[in-house]
């Protein structure tokens, strides 16, 4: 047992760092660090576009995909190094809905034509996707979804309402769970459809979240006609595909590297923040809180490495993989909350975009993104299967209860 990276892994790490320094240099990171995020807009900043193009040129855009569709064939350790280095440098990522969530379903169960048509566009981020899962009546109980898709010749006619649809207002397409059957268990009779967002009958209504961010929406589907060719896999088997997707990429879910970045930055800010003639970092009570979280984070990072090493040896992830989402999100929320404390009164300033555009941020330049991160971060224990649902899953699958 040892924690050392092998020589070839260290060489790979150097290669990755060089790539990042060239295509996502420190000046760019710094300039983007304090920019608030209020509205997801179509198209990306030119520096982001350049980075994504560089990824594609280098063949590193979608490391986890099969090689024939542009994957890298990296070992789990190499993937881990990549995730860690890109998080540390706060590199832009491909939109997760296409690259991390839909793509595995497509390359596993999609038709040849679907793969040819969509995978390259996702890889190059030239087609943005959103995920049509939750409904007003189907949140944690996702299988209770009621959006109907009725076959009419070569088309499905879709009617229903999707909610909490992140990025629906900027997406070109939506992958969507719809009900095609009502026989048997509610998990049966669900199908996986790909829907062009420009199809007549789709209305996207914005939902404004805490922190002033417009990222989620309600999507109404009224007699939306979807070609049968856009059905993924077999009719009524969509639940299996959606569930299969959940077992992909468990390790990234903990967000360890992001939390490490946040923790390190918080220490820096605390050192610069004055309290009683000294700095906040001189306050032993504050430091203890930070260090308690740091220990939790180290434990989580090691848990992730344990999972990684099992996968590297060709095994399936052990039961400890199931805690990554719960602990990772709890921890990032705790860090986000503590970060607000750091700013004292200025932590209370409401991040108003117009004001900032005209007069600059109020208080500490990081203060704005800290409050936004805290408010938006509350969603992390809700989405992707709430943490309570995760505990139900562990209780059943791991403890056998």
């Amino acid at each position, binding site marked *: 047992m*040892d*924690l050392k990276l092998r020589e070839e892994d260290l060489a790979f790490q150097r290669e990755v760092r060089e790539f990042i320094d060239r295509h996502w240099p420190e000046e760019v990171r710094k300039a983007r660090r304090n920019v608030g995020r209020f509205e997801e807009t179509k198209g990306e900043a030119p520096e982001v576009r350049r980075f994504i193009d560089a990824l594609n040129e280098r063949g590193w855009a979608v490391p986890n995909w099969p090689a024939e569709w542009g994957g890298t064939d990296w070992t789990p350790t190499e993937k881990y190094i990549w995730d860690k280095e890109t998080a540390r440098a706060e590199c832009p990522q491909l939109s997760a809905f296409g690259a991390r969530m839909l793509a595995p379903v497509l390359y596993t169960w999609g038709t040849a034509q679907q793969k040819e048509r969509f995978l390259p566009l996702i890889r190059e981020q030239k087609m943005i996707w959103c995920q049509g899962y939750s409904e007003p009546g189907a949140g944690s109980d996702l299988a209770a979804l009621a959006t109907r898709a009725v076959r009419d010749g070569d088309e499905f006619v879709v009617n229903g309402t999707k909610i909490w649809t992140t990025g629906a207002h900027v997406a070109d397409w939506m992958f969507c769970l719809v009900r095609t059957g009502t026989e048997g268990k509610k998990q049966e009779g669900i199908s996986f459809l790909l829907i062009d967002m420009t199809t007549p009958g789709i209305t996207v209504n914005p939902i404004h979240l805490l922190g002033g961010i417009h990222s989620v929406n309600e999507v109404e589907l009224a007699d939306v006609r979807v070609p049968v060719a856009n059905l993924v896999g077999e009719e009524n088997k969509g639940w299996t595909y959606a569930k299969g997707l959940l077992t992909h990429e468990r390790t990234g879910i903990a967000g360890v590297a992001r939390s490490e970045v946040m923790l390190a930055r918080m220490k820096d800010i605390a050192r610069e923040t004055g309290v009683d003639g000294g700095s906040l970092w001189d306050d032993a009570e504050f430091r203890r809180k930070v260090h308690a979280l740091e220990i939790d984070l180290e434990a989580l990072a090691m848990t992730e490495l344990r999972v990684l090493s099992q996968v590297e040896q060709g095994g399936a992830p052990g039961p400890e993989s199931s805690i990554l989402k719960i602990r990772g999100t709890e921890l990032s929320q705790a860090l986000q909350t503590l970060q607000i404390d750091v700013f004292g009164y200025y932590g209370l300033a409401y991040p108003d975009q117009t004001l900032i555009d005209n007069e600059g941020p109020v208080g500490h330049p990081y203060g704005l993104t800290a409050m936004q991160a805290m408010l938006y971060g509350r969603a992390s224990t809700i989405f992707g299967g709430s943490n309570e649902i995760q505990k139900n899953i562990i209780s059943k699958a791991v*403890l056998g209860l």
Partner: protein
Amino acid sequence: MDFSLSDEQSLLKDSVERFVQNDYDFDKRRKVMAEEDGFSRKNWQQFAELGWLAIPFSEEDGGFGGGAIELMLLMEQIGRGLIVEPYLPTVVLAGGFLRRAGSAAQKEQYLSGIIDGSKLSAFAFAEPQGRFNLADLTTTAKAKGDGYVLSGHKAVVLGGPSADFLVVSARTSGDQRDADGISLFLVDAGAKGLSRRDYPTVDGLRASEVMLENVEVGKDALIGAEGKALPLIEEVIDDAILAVGCEAVGAMEVLYKATVEYSKQRVQFGQPIGKFQVLQHRMVDMFMEYEQSKSLMFMAAMRLDEGYNDAAKKAISGFKVQVGKSGRFVGQQAVQLHGGMGMTEELSVGHYFKRLTMIDTLFGNVDFHLKRYGSFD
């Protein structure tokens, strides 16, 4: 990066696991604890025959040259079986000093006895006023003739009652809490002027208050350099922290699994209590605490094997914080979920809980190690 065990390591793990399973169930443990010493000398001889007492020592010293990973594997199983035989005081603590700083003569006289099972030992370091500060010493060792005279009160010396010899920390110079001026001495249990008050600890071990009144030792009793022992003490104590932390991880595994099993059997309101969601989530929390502790256990052991430096010390303190917190939680919740039965001496659950509570305090509790962890920042 590699988390797999070597063949030798797997063999060691299996051998201790088998012993716990076949020879150390809860009833056998109860009988062992009722013996005069509070443990079984027969078991101790078996440990010697199985080679466990030789694990951390170099091949030159007659050992197997095991490191932190080997210690981890052994102690985790010791924790699962709640083994009361004095491995920690004899092999990890006293043996830890001898193997690092013992002279050839000292190794000859004491270490060989540890390895063959004929000698037991203990480390007398704590003092009534010192709490967890290893340097807070009022016990003195004054030079006299060709040797030293030791006087003072050493507190809660684990394994003291059965020790054939003690390793004693004492001040040869400096003020009460100075880092400099601390020395280590080998003192025979029967030395003139040494007296003990023996008592059981809450988790079924034995300890002593050791009074030293003008105990004379020769110059050859000094371990390492005079006045320079504190870094060595810190290093050996960090080994001991790894050891008890691994015990805690083993104990937590037993407890969370026993609680899950119990919740499947115990019927109330017409169904097994494990069907209640509030209890399910509690048990998931116990499972997660165990897994997080296990992760930091791996990290602490691997860091120690990389070398004894600040990164290793930080990892040890982080691990101790985690097992302190998690051990209390898992122990307390195991009692809670077992209900009235969890409160009884009859069930093993309470005994694991007591051991975990003890481990939180041993060698510095959560507060102490959180502060130490932060001192490396």
